[in-house]
């Protein structure tokens, strides 16, 4: 999938930010209800990134569904894209509900919002199976290493050795969302930081185009329970240690791409003909190389390095809907005549189970 160095066309391409997007809508149309999270919460910053990208990409809100489980992060779908259906489901069970929804209507764009408790603790099973099925959706983990709504218990991504006022010391090693995803054969894995709005937005742009599930593990500090400087999930730690791996840019199929030799850039073709133009910044990492992605994540874990950017992408793997080979028309839109076979079919079935009669 990696191909010759490319770079995007400049100048003619991107529209400048203006008051109205391509659908003639102001950005305020993409807002949600006022957030009830703590002031300064990383999650609110991520909500804003979703609003920006949806507005910029002229997303039709009625085709988007916002899915979540339970927890602080799972409340956030109420705070963006007011024109989209939302479903605040059960703790750790958003993946299965999302799977059912996309099977019902393959035209939906699913944005799933989860947290580290919702995904890595109670929901690790459903999470990994949604990844394994390559359910076409964006799966954002707003990862802060702590339970917020229940007041500061450790989650499964909490740092080993970390102490909490009422809960003592966490003796257990953290689960790494990106490593878990790759182990379950994820087709897009990225890590980011709520303090890096630009990177989140560019990763989101790619995620919207990805064939299958996009796992975005976004470190999103909890200002109330886990923002002290030693926490690897704090703003300070993030700002100081963020090792940006690459900078990605989405070039839609319609736009021309100039292909030039350019050492640190690669172009990755997406399933719909878009291109990811990826500029290497940190380590020399090819995100289409799965073994390299695994090595990268393992060594980052060993060395406690906070690498961010696009870690792995695979556009060759069929998504769940393709595997099921469903009708192009969403199942939810099928007319009754396609949902109920004619009476003659049942007559034939009854015939199969009828007695032969005496010989």
């Amino acid at each position, binding site marked *: 999938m990696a191909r010759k160095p490319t770079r995007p066309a400049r100048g003619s391409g991107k529209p400048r930010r203006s008051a109205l997007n391509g659908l003639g809508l102001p950005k305020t149309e993409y807002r949600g*209800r006022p957030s009830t999270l703590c002031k300064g919460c990383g999650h609110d910053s991520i909500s804003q990134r979703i609003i920006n990208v949806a507005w910029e990409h002229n997303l*039709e*809100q*009625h*085709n988007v*569904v916002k899915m979540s489980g339970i927890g602080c992060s799972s409340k956030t*779908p*109420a705070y963006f894209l007011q*024109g*989209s*259906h*939302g*479903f*605040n*489901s*059960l703790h750790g*069970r958003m*993946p*299965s*509900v*999302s*799977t*059912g*929804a*996309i*099977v*019902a*209507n393959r035209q*939906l764009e699913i944005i799933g919002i989860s947290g580290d408790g919702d995904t890595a603790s109670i929901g690790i*099973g*459903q999470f990994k*199976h949604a990844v394994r099925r390559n359910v076409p959706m964006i799966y954002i983990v707003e990862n802060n290493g702590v339970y917020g709504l229940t007041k500061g218990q450790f989650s499964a991504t909490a740092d080993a050795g970390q102490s909490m006022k009422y809960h003592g010391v966490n003796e257990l090693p953290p689960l790494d969302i990106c490593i878990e995803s790759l182990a379950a054969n994820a087709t897009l894995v990225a890590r980011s930081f709520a303090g890096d709005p630009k990177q989140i937005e560019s990763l989101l742009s790619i995620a919207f185009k990805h064939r299958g599930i996009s796992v975005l593990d976004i470190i999103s500090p909890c200002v109330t329970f886990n923002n002290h400087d030693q926490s690897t999930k704090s703003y300070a730690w993030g700002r100081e240690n963020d090792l940006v791996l690459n900078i990605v840019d989405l070039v839609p199929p319609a736009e021309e791409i100039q292909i030039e030799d350019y050492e640190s850039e690669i172009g990755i073709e997406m399933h719909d003909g878009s291109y990811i133009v990826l500029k290497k910044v940190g380590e020399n990492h090819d995100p289409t190389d799965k073994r390299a992605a695994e090595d990268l994540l393992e060594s980052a874990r060993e060395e406690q390095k906070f690498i961010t950017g696009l870690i792995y992408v695979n556009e060759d793997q069929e998504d769940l809907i393709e595997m*099921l*080979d*469903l*009708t*192009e*028309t*969403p*199942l*939810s*839109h*099928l007319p*009754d*005549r*396609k*949902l*109920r*076979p004619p009476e003659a*079919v*049942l007559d034939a*079935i*009854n015939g199969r*189970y*009828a*007695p*032969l*009669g*005496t*010989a």
Partner: protein
Amino acid sequence: MEQIATVPELTISDHIVNDFSLTVATANGTGSQTSNLVLMHALFNMGIPVTGKNIFPSNIQGLPTWYSIRVSSEGFLARRELNEITVCMNPATAVEDMAIMQPDGYILHDSAIPVAVRRDDVTYIELPVKSLVAPFKVPTALRAYVSNQIYVGALAWLLELPMEEIHRALQQQLKGKDSAIQLNLEVAQAGFDHCSETYENLAPWRVEPMAGFNENRILIQGNTAAALGAVFGGVSLVSWYPITPSSSLAEAAADALPRYRLDPDTDKPTFAVIQAEDELAAIGMAIGAGWAGARGMTTTSGPGISLMAEFIGLAYFAEIPVVVWDVQRMGPSTGLPTRTSQGDILSAYTLSHGDTRHVVLFPSSPKECFEFGWRAHDLADQLQTPVLVLTDLDLGMNLWISEPLEYPDEPINRGKVLDAEQLDELAAEWGRYRDVDGDGIAYRTLPGTPSNWAAYFTRGTGHDEMSHYSEKPEVWEHNLQRVQRKLETARGLVPQPDIVRDSGERIGLISLGSNHPAVQEARVRLAETGIPTDYLRVRALPVNQTIRDFINDHEVTVVIENNADGQLHGILKLETDVPDHQLVSSRRCNGLALSARWITEQITTITQR
């Protein structure tokens, strides 16, 4: 088929025709299923009312299995406690199988199995299985399978069941596999010939072709019929997790959907079947589909129902249609996975925490499994709520003679769903949980509806009419009262009970589900002894006035069910205000289907009080 010379010519009056039970004892994994199904179908094809019950272990190979076949000229299809003929093919259970044989019974046994205590009051027919099969060139791996045909032939001899019927039933079971059909038939013939050459047939039981019962009937498992009902009910997603005794329902759906539900225009599937990672995901997927406007269903049994409780509560409170089939087995806990029970009635009715009551349907025959297979989806959509269909292992996994499956007599009903045009007209008037019609059922919208007014936020948390989060006491009360109003609406929408009145208001029987044939038979026996009864078969919860009236109309009503706690009785007690002595519980729970004999004894005792 020519008559065997050694069988004396007897007039019909000398024989008991088409009325007996026989049990075949084998070890599981030895392929006795084909032999038993051949016997079942041969009898069915001859027009004889027949029931087969597979009493099998939770195991793959080597543990005891019994298959009981009852033929009844009167058309009674319930389990019978008496057993006239036993075929002993399993050394592990032979001692007991032979010991419990009733007097005057016949025991057909593999000669490799010795008779431990020879009784004077039973007849033994020895089958030298090994030596009879030896002349056939059978691969070792298939030897045990084919050997079972020896008892098929022996029974054909004993019952004067024409070998031609065995041949035709083999052709049905082993469609197109000509060499296998031939081999099995020859082995069966060897069993037949051995008996006819060795013994004089003095047994009193015979089978004879019969008219008037099986015509216009089918022989099918409840699970198969249920799956077909869903197929004709427009199910779009079957998400499930394997669990006995429900797996064959999901598997039947996975088999039938590609046959009958490809898009006629594009040949593409209009459905998905997903084997989930667990029951939580299975119900979650079905709910996700229902929320997004496609019919979702899952199939499970008791342990799965327990796991699904939280999700069912969400679907109840967020008001999302979903259908759950619970093919009940013995609980509590893992219980007896391969034995039947009706132990989930109470937990299904009130599944999940908080104040919840659900629509629960109780089919009693394959025909009704089919009907509830599609109707459950209509009800779920109309009421925007989970519908649980409770069947059991006995109905689900055994073959039943049933009336044919009946094509739905009403079009698919998707309930109150607003489209973009309606929404644009209503605009801010519309609220997801606003009761406009007074029936407690609000209008819903589907994601993907191209209107600025379509979106709402679905949640299991407290919400107002606009589906906004609210912790206000009056908002909570208002909303939950509406949901309860919906349950009142449900009372009129669910399948009404079946009622037969014969007793003149003295004794009423109430039962449900697969108990039906046993109750029917018991009513005939009771009437013969001068105890006429009325009978109400509950087909759904919540109960309605018809059921209350039936109870009020009778001096005493007995609730007959297959569980230890008298769960339906308990629900009826809660929902009616009759005194204790007027509503009595008769329950049994031992892993077997109820028998007419037990019911008859129970009712007789109660009437003598």
